[in-house]
């Protein structure tokens, strides 16, 4: 009896195949994250309807007006709304979702299963890329149909759109995960992250023409990713001559890539150092 017990325990331990890798679990997580996202009416309505409603409001209020060198307000604000949309589906959605997952016990379960954190990040990032793509497609369609906002005219602009959006999504996702240990309960997270995002939108030229904001506001905004995301989007949707209306007098693509890339790295470092499945110990 005693001998067989040892044999059985050892056998079973050696017998066990290695646990599945982080990528395989991560891919399974993308599917499940998307399913959970679609079953959260609050998230879906907020991330899909909010940008479209903003576009309709701005279109109604400022439609037909111009700013700077012959730039239509609709085009100017579409850039800001697209950038805001990316922040909504990445930073805001992720930050709030993690706080909720913690309260629902989802994260505790992942911890008990020894889930590699990388698999969790892959799942989140995959879900955010898909939902952001869907949201931007909806927004650009409405903008084109309702306000004749031209879609990016050439491959170069689409390329810019692609890398700006992708860097924005990555920065937003890792920063959403990075703030999650510090935001407290799901309710506090929802209020805190949403509040922060709204203020950042005011500072970053989403609701107002950025070049007309007070310089101190511009300087504060320049620290955060949203300003650069917005500016990058303007370089896609506005004519080249509009670059003269920017604070720097150019689109600053290099600096945009640098700042967004730096935020991705900062986010990853903070995640690695502070991410916890549970609040408190462990």
């Amino acid at each position: 009896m005693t001998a067989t017990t040892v044999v059985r325990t050892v056998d079973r331990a050696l017998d066990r195949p290695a646990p599945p890798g982080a990528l395989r679990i991560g891919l399974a997580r993308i599917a499940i994250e998307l399913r959970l996202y679609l079953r959260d009416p609050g998230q879906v309505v907020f991330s899909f309807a909010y940008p479209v409603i903003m576009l309709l409001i701005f279109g109604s209020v400022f439609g037909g007006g111009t700013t700077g060198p012959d730039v239509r307000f609709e085009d100017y604000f579409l850039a800001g709304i697209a950038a805001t949309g990316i922040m909504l589906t990445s930073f805001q959605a992720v930050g709030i979702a993690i706080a909720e997952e913690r309260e629902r016990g989802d994260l505790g379960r992942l911890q008990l299963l020894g889930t590699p954190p990388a698999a969790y990040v892959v799942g989140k990032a995959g879900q955010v890329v898909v939902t952001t793509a869907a949201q931007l497609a909806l927004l650009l369609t409405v903008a084109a149909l309702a306000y004749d906002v031209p879609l990016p005219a050439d491959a170069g602009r689409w390329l810019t759109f692609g890398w700006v959006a992708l860097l924005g999504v990555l920065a937003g996702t890792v920063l959403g995960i990075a703030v999650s240990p510090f935001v407290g309960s799901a309710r506090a997270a929802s209020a805190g992250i949403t509040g922060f995002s709204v203020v950042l939108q005011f500072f970053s030229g989403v609701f107002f023409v950025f070049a007309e904001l007070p310089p101190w506001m511009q300087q504060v905004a320049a620290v955060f990713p949203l300003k650069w995301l917005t500016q990058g989007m303007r370089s896609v949707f506005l004519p080249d001559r509009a670059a003269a209306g920017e604070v720097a007098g150019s689109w600053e693509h290099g600096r945009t890539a640098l700042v967004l890339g730096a935020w991705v790295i900062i986010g990853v470092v903070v995640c690695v150092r502070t991410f916890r499945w549970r609040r408190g110990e462990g």
Partner: protein
Amino acid sequence: MTTQIEPALRVRGLVKRYGGRAVVDGLDLDVQAGEVFALLGPNGAGKTTTVEILEGLRRRDGGEIRVLGTDPAAGDRTWRARIGVVGQTTGDGNALTVRETLDHFTAYHPRSEDTDELIAAVGLTDSAGTRAARLSGGQRRRLEVALSMQGRPELLFLDEPTTGLDPVARRQFWSVLQRLRSGGTTVLLTTHYLDEAAHLADRVGVIDGGRLVDVAPPDEMGGELRLRSTVRWREDGGFRTVVTTEPAVVLRDLLTTGPRADLPGLTVTRPSLEEVYLQLVGAASVERAPEGVLR
């Protein structure tokens, strides 16, 4: 002490302090492979803290631990795949159905039990299409048990699995555990229900003040305490009692020397498991009566 077999779980001198106060204070514990062991104790006795340290979720301040031959503080994924855990708190549940949840988590294990069989084993077949957030507390708990069993663990930790369940749900839960036991899984279970420990466990460890105060099979719990019988009879218009480990001797004496041979109102009682337990954890409503003293 040396043992020839390596136990599934071995703890020596475990200490955990919170703010200078030791909530686990020199705990020793062995659980053999294939055994169902119940840690029984009142709230705050240190059960959950102990179990969470064994699961590798909390750090310890002292002592030695081997769980399936590994120190939980250094447990990697291969080790984690060999244990199953049902924690004390159950979350609110998410928008995935029972079946979707189990199907999804198969991706996390090298080998998984069949989803339908698992659902049947925990009695959730009728709720397989219900979202976790809409399950009752007892059903969510059983979903957690299904998840903890999914990767075919060798050792299962169940922390107060039936707290907050209604009596029917508790009984259903018990039958799930009995099926597990017959499958050879080692189980460490915590509970503050005495009947649960007595019903399910091969051995019961009574924990109080962060130490094990007694370890025994349920019917031997309390040792000598359990053997003390109380002999009670009516005499001179009042009741007299004798506490003894040898009631037959006392009775023989009474019958030969007592004032009346019929001993009116005679009872001989042994302490119930519950009385023994309450004495062990120092919450005795029954006074600890010294043996052989007449009252």
